[in-house]
């Protein structure tokens, strides 16, 4: 929650700067100087020395850095501060220099980009998956805030990893930026681009945290509403719902209401109680609401419309789904979005008993992506329903006998679950230019 965190940061800094100054050490101030230098020298988008430097911060380093950071940000913001000791004066000088050279907002933006690049660079090496991480005390400081994330592959729980600390810290800086410059488009652009990056890696635990922050900072931003809707939409899909299979949902609900999980509960139930996975019907209802809000904020958001169509199909509202798919297609959206529009429009039409229309939708999807397995299957199944066995077989003729992983790119359905993640690179490149 960046705004809350930011408010806490400022409050702590203003109220107890003297106490903070007493806690300063030469180590902590030296760490701050190195961090300041990294922010100043970093080229956004490059995995340079500055990024390596930040990535090397240990938990202890960050604990040390936490104390002078509060004072530094206070001075950087331009708030009055009278240092009363030598170490405090070093912090004061450093912050004043950063403010004079870059300005408050520009320095914060540079710092956000540095930690974003560090988070992305850190993800290049696979984190160690362990059966269970020890619980860590939740602190107020965004420099020390990490979370345990459960890793699953194809419905099988592999273990836990620790989230990257750069994300919550970057979010807290973005929160400060939002306070300093409420209309700065960078904040919305950053949340959307970085959420896209997280989607692209299927890091749903991180996306959830990220969008929970974005929701507070930008409650009515169409892109954030769309991202949130996409996240919930994916929660309703089998790839996520499979984690609730065989689970005592009443026990899970009790646990979420603060009660303990019964001792007799299965391992799957205990695990599910720790995961933030809504039940399918709840998720679909929430996703529908978010997509509708996104469309009220920006009626031209075609992908929100096609995703809304999919959700409506899942909820059994086929005619409404068809209306949304048609509305999205009328705007001549990009190929991938048009593919989804045709695929979902076809399914909605088929479910409504309009087989000729369904065939046209599926054929249009195949015109855009001739090797898309999903559209071939849809076309084949429809032909079978119409007793056209020859047509059903013909629709599958292009299925490759020996598909390679890269062949999955031929079918946008296979990356529907990545949501806007498929566009994270251009979104992030645009952010760097700004």
């Amino acid at each position, binding site marked *: 929650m960046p705004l809350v965190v930011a408010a806490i940061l400022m409050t702590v800094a203003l109220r107890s700067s003297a106490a903070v100054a007493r806690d300063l050490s030469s180590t902590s101030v030296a760490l701050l100087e190195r961090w300041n230098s990294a922010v100043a020298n970093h080229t956004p988008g490059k995995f340079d020395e500055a990024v390596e430097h930040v990535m090397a911060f240990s938990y202890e380093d960050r604990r040390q850095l936490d104390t002078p950071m509060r004072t530094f940000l206070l001075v950087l913001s331009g708030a009055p501060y009278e240092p009363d000791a030598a170490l405090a004066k070093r912090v004061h000088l450093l912050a004043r220099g950063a403010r004079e050279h870059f300005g408050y907002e520009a320095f914060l933006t540079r710092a956000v980009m540095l930690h974003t690049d560090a988070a992305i660079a850190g993800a290049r090496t696979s984190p160690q998956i362990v059966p269970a991480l020890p619980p860590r005390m939740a602190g107020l400081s965004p420099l020390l805030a990490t979370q345990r994330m459960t890793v699953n592959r*194809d*419905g099988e729980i592999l273990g836990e990893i620790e989230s990257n600390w750069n994300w919550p810290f970057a979010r807290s800086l973005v929160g400060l930026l939002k306070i300093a410059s409420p209309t700065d488009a960078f904040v919305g652009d950053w949340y959307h681009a970085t959420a896209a990056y997280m989607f692209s890696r299927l890091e749903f635990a991180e996306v959830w945290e990220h969008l929970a922050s974005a929701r507070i900072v930008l409650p009515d931003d169409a892109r954030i509403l769309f991202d949130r809707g996409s996240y919930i939409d994916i929660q309703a899909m089998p790839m996520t719902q499979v984690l609730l299979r065989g689970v005592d949902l009443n026990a899970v609900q009790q646990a979420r209401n603060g009660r303990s999980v019964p001792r007799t509960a299965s391992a799957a139930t205990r695990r599910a109680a720790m995961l933030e996975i809504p039940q399918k019907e709840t998720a679909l209802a929430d996703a529908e609401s978010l997509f509708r809000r996104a469309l009220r904020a920006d009626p031209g958001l075609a992908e929100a419309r096609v995703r809304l169509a999919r959700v409506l199909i899942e909820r059994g509202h086929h005619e409404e789904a068809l209306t949304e798919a048609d509305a999205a297609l009328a705007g001549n959206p990009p190929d991938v979005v048009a593919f989804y529009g045709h695929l979902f429009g076809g399914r909605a039409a088929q479910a409504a008993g309009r087989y000729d229309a369904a065939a046209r939708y599926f054929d249009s999807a195949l015109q855009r992506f001739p090797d898309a397995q999903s559209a071939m299957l849809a076309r*084949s199944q429809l032909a079978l329903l119409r007793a056209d066995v020859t047509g059903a077989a013909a629709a599958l003729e292009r299925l490759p006998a020996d*598909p390679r992983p890269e062949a999955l790119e031929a079918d946008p359905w296979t990356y529907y679950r990545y949501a806007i993640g498929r566009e994270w690179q251009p979104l992030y490149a645009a952010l760097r230019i700004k």
Partner: protein
Amino acid sequence: MLWRATFVVTSLIALQTFSSRTLGVRVDVLVTDGRAPVGGLRAADFEVRDNGVPQTVALLTSSEPINVVLALDVSASTDGKRQADLQRASGALLAGLKPGDRAALVTFTQAVAPRIPLTADFPAIRASFAAIQPFGETAILDGVFVALMSVQAQPGRSLVVVCTDGNDTASWLSVGEVLEAAKRSNAVIYAVSAVEARPPSELKDVSDATGGQMLQVTASRDLAAAFERILSDFRSRYTLAFTPEGVEAGGLHRLDVRVKRSGLSVKARPSYVGLSPK
């Protein structure tokens, strides 16, 4: 509509499509005494009702060649020992096939691959499977659909053996859509789930819709025994045929198959989709 049973049987063998416009219906039936399949039954031992209306049935020859489609999960989780055990199980099943029988190989991750169409060249199937490098997620329903389609218009009795170690996480087709395909197919689906926790319910639904079964094994080393049992069960099944009488030709037909002898249980498809004649 006064076709004689012999004519129906002849036309069925010639066309072999469940939803054919000849109005012939065939039903694969497994009869057990609670432990093992029961043989030696005659047509007169069976009672078949189509939408509640008794039908006159014929018993097709049990020595008819069979088609077997292996629909195998090769997602990332099968890499290593599971894949080796699956390879052995497939080999054991193929070794049990007789001259005239044919087999096909369909694999699925997110990507469904119709690797080898129906063939008597079983070494080609073994070689194809051995060369597969597992990757990706699991689209069971999509895989089942393609497997059903691979025998949709083929002569002979058809068995689809689906094997997975996971749950469906990636299919485009819904369970309802695959059930619709299953009701229009003559094939019998036997599914083997090597999931340690709860097996995929959609797989059981689809198997039941064809009169097949779902087996669960707790360790992948047990797959070979499961595959051999499936082939043995399938060979022990009876194939009944009838021309629907006293019912509308089109739409969903509820099927009720019983054996007149007591103490025996019957497993057969609960319904089929009929087509109106042109």
